[in-house]
Structure formats: structure tokens, C-alpha cells
């Protein structure tokens, strides 16, 4: 197949891929609500729900935390089904070998997510909850990428009409995107301590720029806090974790702001990637506002969940920026190898 020949866009497949990505985003929200409402263990069994087949669990019993956990499981099943259909569709109808394999990866990813979520409940392991949250967002990036690759913007790359993105700018955005991913891991770790807010004030932290974390101070924080929810005691580790999360947020803000400046300078104001970087910056500002609001509302469930969702959008935006940038910068070889065209060309020329 001639790598430079455009792949015919399969519009129904493309729209289905978009629908699956949107469904995944909604599932992130459902999962976020589970943790924000501390409902992750409200259905003690899996894959059944209180002894019922999960698809036959009576609606009258969907009360309290059960409502969030059970609907999350049902929606996850729907996303699993959609992902399976997408994987089969890609295998049968997309001529690009790497796209077929992306579909297979997506299928195994959603299966792994389901199993991880179930094991988190049956094995009482908060650490699995952290993995479950992080992989959920990674999976969302994958679904968005698949939707993107099946669409027209990516296909235009193959027609070789998009300008090259400077290597320094590509590397900068890739670095910031990886930093956002690390921030997401920090956030997931914080949420799965199930300890409420380790630091309940902002911009100070327990009344200081850097809070005390000695045993007496930690004991004092726990004594002063009047829990309404079933929060675990605050620990020094959690206090430090939140401080690191705040500092990384500042670094990300600076990094994305720089990405905007560099894009304007190197690509021009009208370039798609410049516009995307401006959208990215708006997301980061919104994310910071949500983060502060999470503290000021004493971790209100809807605010905390919105913070998770905007974090996911921030990660996806950075990832798509990188995909477009690296794809645009590839010198097309005779063999179209992979989405990161520069890397694929390098491999082909070895």
C-alpha cells in the first residue's frame, strides 16, 4: 500500500469511535463520583451485587453509595461492550495494521480495567484503586486517540499538507504532558487514601507556607478535624503528597503557558496546534480553580469529581497535541508505520 495515499475515512466507524470516547469520559465521571462519595466499597461483592446478577439488581436497592458504585459498574459494562464492538470493527474494516492492534489493546485494556475494579473491592486493596483510576485515564487517552486516528484531521497528515513542528516545542509539550500524567498519579494516590482533606486550607497549608509534619502536628490536625464522612486519619505522608500536588500544579501551569507562547512564536496564531495550546491553557486554569474549590468546599463530591474530569481532559489535550505535532513532523517514508511518525520513520530507516 502506498503510504502517501490517503486512507478512506470510514465515517460510521469514526463516529462510533467518538461515541465510545465520550462514553469513556462519562465513565470517568461515574468512577470519580464513586470515590468522591466514598462509595467504592458499598457493594461488597463482585461481579454480583449483593448476591444478585449485576444486571438484575433491583433499582429499589440502589440507595446511598450503592447508587454510585452500581451505576458505575453498569456503565463500565456498556463501555466494555462499545470498546469490543470498536475493536472488532477496526480489525475488520481499518486497513492500517497499527489501528487494528490499537483496537485490540483497547479491548484488553477495558477488560483489565473491569477486573482491576472488581479485585479492588474483593481484595480490599486501596492500591488497586489507584491503578484503576490511573489506567482509566490512560484508557481515555487511548480512546480519544483512536477516535482521532479514524477522523479527517489525522488523514490530512497523510496528504502531507501540514507544517512541521519544531523539535524543541514538541519535546516541551511532551514533557508537560508526562508531568500532567504524573500529577494524575499523585491525585489518584491522594484520593485513594480515603482520608478526606489532609490540608484543609488554601493558599496556606495548616496556617503555614509549608505545614508541620511532625507526629504532634499530625495528631493536632486529626484532633481539630471534625469528620462528617468516614475518613481515615490524616498522616504525614498525605500532607506531603498534597503539598507536592500543589507545587506540580504550578509547574504545569508554567509549562502550558510556555507552550502557548512557543506555539504562537513558532507556529503562528492561526495554527491548529496554537489554538489547541490556548484551549489547553484554559483547561489548566479551570483545573487550578477546581483544585482550590475542592479545598474550600471541604472536598464537595461534585467539585472533586469535576477536578478529576478536567484533569483527564488536560491529559488528553496534551496527548493529542503531541500526536498531531509528532505526526506533522514526520517525513513520510514509503511505509506508514505508526502514529508517532518521526519515531516510525527512524525505525524504518534503521
Amino acid at each position, binding site marked *: 500500500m502506498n503510504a502517501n495515499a490517503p486512507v478512506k475515512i470510514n465515517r460510521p466507524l469514526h463516529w462510533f469511535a467518538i461515541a465510545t470516547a465520550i462514553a469513556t469520559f462519562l465513565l470517568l465521571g461515574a468512577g470519580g463520583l464513586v470515590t468522591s462519595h466514598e*462509595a467504592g466499597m458499598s*457493594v*461488597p461483592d463482585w461481579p454480583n451485587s449483593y448476591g444478585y446478577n449485576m444486571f438484575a439488581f433491583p433499582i429499589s436497592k440502589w440507595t446511598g453509595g*450503592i447508587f454510585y458504585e452500581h451505576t458505575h459498574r453498569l456503565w463500565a459494562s456498556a463501555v466494555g461492550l462499545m470498546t469490543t464492538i470498536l475493536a472488532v470493527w477496526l480489525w475488520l474494516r481499518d486497513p492500517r495494521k497499527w489501528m487494528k492492534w490499537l483496537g485490540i489493546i483497547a479491548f484488553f485494556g477495558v477488560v483489565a480495567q473491569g477486573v482491576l475494579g472488581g479485585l479492588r473491592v474483593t481484595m480490599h486493596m486501596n492500591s488497586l484503586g489507584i491503578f484503576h483510576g490511573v489506567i482509566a485515564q490512560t484508557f481515555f487517552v487511548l480512546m480519544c486517540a483512536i477516535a482521532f486516528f479514524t477522523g479527517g484531521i489525522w488523514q490530512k497528515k497523510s496528504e502531507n499538507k501540514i507544517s512541521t513542528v519544531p523539535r524543541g516545542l514538541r519535546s516541551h509539550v511532551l514533557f508537560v504532558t508526562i508531568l500532567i500524567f504524573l500529577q494524575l498519579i499523585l491525585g489518584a494516590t491522594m484520593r485513594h487514601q480515603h482520608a478526606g482533606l489532609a490540608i484543609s486550607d488554601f493558599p496556606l497549608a495548616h496556617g503555614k507556607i509549608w505545614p508541620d509534619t511532625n507526629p504532634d502536628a499530625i495528631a493536632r490536625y486529626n*484532633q481539630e478535624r*471534625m*469528620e*462528617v464522612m*468516614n475518613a*481515615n486519619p490524616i498522616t504525614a505522608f498525605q500532607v506531603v503528597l498534597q503539598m507536592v500536588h500543589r507545587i506540580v500544579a504550578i509547574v504545569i501551569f508554567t509549562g502550558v503557558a510556555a507552550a502557548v507562547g512557543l506555539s504562537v512564536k513558532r507556529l503562528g496564531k492561526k495554527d491548529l496546534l496554537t489554538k489547541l495550546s490556548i484551549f489547553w491553557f484554559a483547561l489548566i486554569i479551570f483545573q487550578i480553580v477546581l483544585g482550590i474549590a475542592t479545598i474550600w468546599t471541604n472536598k464537595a463530591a461534585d467539585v472533586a469529581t469535576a477536578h478529576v474530569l478536567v484533569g483527564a481532559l488536560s491529559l488528553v489535550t496534551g496527548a493529542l497535541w503531541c500526536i498531531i505535532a509528532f505526526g506533522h513532523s514526520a517525513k513520510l517514508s514509503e511505509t506508514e508505520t505508526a502514529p508517532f511518525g518521526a519515531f516510525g520513520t527512524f525505525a524504518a530507516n534503521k
Partner: protein
Amino acid sequence: MIKILSIFLLVATLAATPVLRAADIVGTVTFKGTPPAEIPLTQMEDNADCMAMHKETPTTHHYVVGKNGEFGNVTVYLQGMDGKSTGATAAPAVLDQKGCLYEPTILAVQTGQKITVKNSDDCIHNVHAIPSPTSGNQEVNDPQQPGGADLTYSFPKPEMFLKFQCDVHPWMFAWVSVFDHPYFCVSGTDGKFTIKNVPPGKYTIVAAHRKAGEQTQEVEVKDANATVNFTFEPPK
């Protein structure tokens, strides 16, 4: 003759020797000052099943303080008494779920002692016990239907303030302290406590409250009840 004399001497010696009997340690825990205000459980207002069992929105119960400063829900125990547990033969302690709240919120048991968890509500609860990761006790999480059978647990290792919670109703939590001996109690709403049948000797007695902190005193038990009082103040 010599036999009778020997028996007489033995009985006389025993009668003359004072018998050291176990005694109780009694006392009162008081709270001086105004405790922090309790917080309404507003999340319960979204749950019709739970609110149906209350006339108004309940509040947290971190501090149970009477009109005259009587301080309830303080766990009082003797230090350094591990290895004397009689939990295996002790009567079960009861933790009930009533009105979507745990009763009591502070409980103390021995290692190996059964804890019977009841569901007196007309709604589902899950019983989720979360020990400290280093305690050696196992986490459990079980469903409990309305009108369902009581659940029974016991914990083999001592641990202060092991948390029980319901994840269906996340404002529900209780704290169970597990001791490897029987010398403990929880102060009542009148602030009074009694640790029963303490052998004679000198001890360190601890009064622990999750928010007000911990205090220790030295006490000597002879052959009559010993009295120890504690006074707590608001955290600074």
C-alpha cells in the same frame, strides 16, 4: 493431738494474713470548657430511608459532653497488661445500626471477643471494618440486608480505634478499641467509668479520646476500690 494442733495453727495463720482481693478502679471523666460544635449530617438529607427515622438532621457525635461537663465515650484502660485476654469466653459486644447511625460510636473489646453487628434498620448497610495496616487484624466488608442475620467478628490483635464504617451511608462510622486484657471500659454519658476486678498493684491508667487527646495517671489498687478522675479541655 499434734495433728489437731497443726490444723489449728494453719487456720490461725490464714485468718491473720490479710487476703489481697481484686478491686475496681472507678472514676469520672469531665470536660472543662466548650467542646467544638458538632456538624449536621447534611448528606443524610439526601437519603429518604434514613431521614424517615429522624425528626431532624442528626449531627456528628465526636464529643459527648453533659450539662455539667460529664464526658462520655472516653476509652479508659490499663497499660502494660497484654497477654491476659479472656476474650474467647467473654460475652459478645454489640454494635447496632439504628437510624443509619452506629450505636455505640465508641466500643472497646478484648482480642478474640466476639462483636455482634446488628442491622436494626429497614435498609441495606455494609459492615466494613478497616484496621490499621500494621495491626495484624484483617479488613472485612460484608453486606447486611434489613432484617438480615447478625454478623459476628473478632480481632486477634490489640488496636486502638479500629474503624467500622458503612460505605452505603458514608457518615456512619464507629471506633472499636481492641485490648489484649480485660482492664478497660468506656465512660458513660454521666462521665463515669469502672474497670472491674483489677488485681492489687500499681498501674498506669490511660484515658483516650479521639479528639480531646490522651491522658495518663498512676494508680495503686489495694483491697478497696481506687478512684481516678480525668479532666479534658478543648484542643488548642
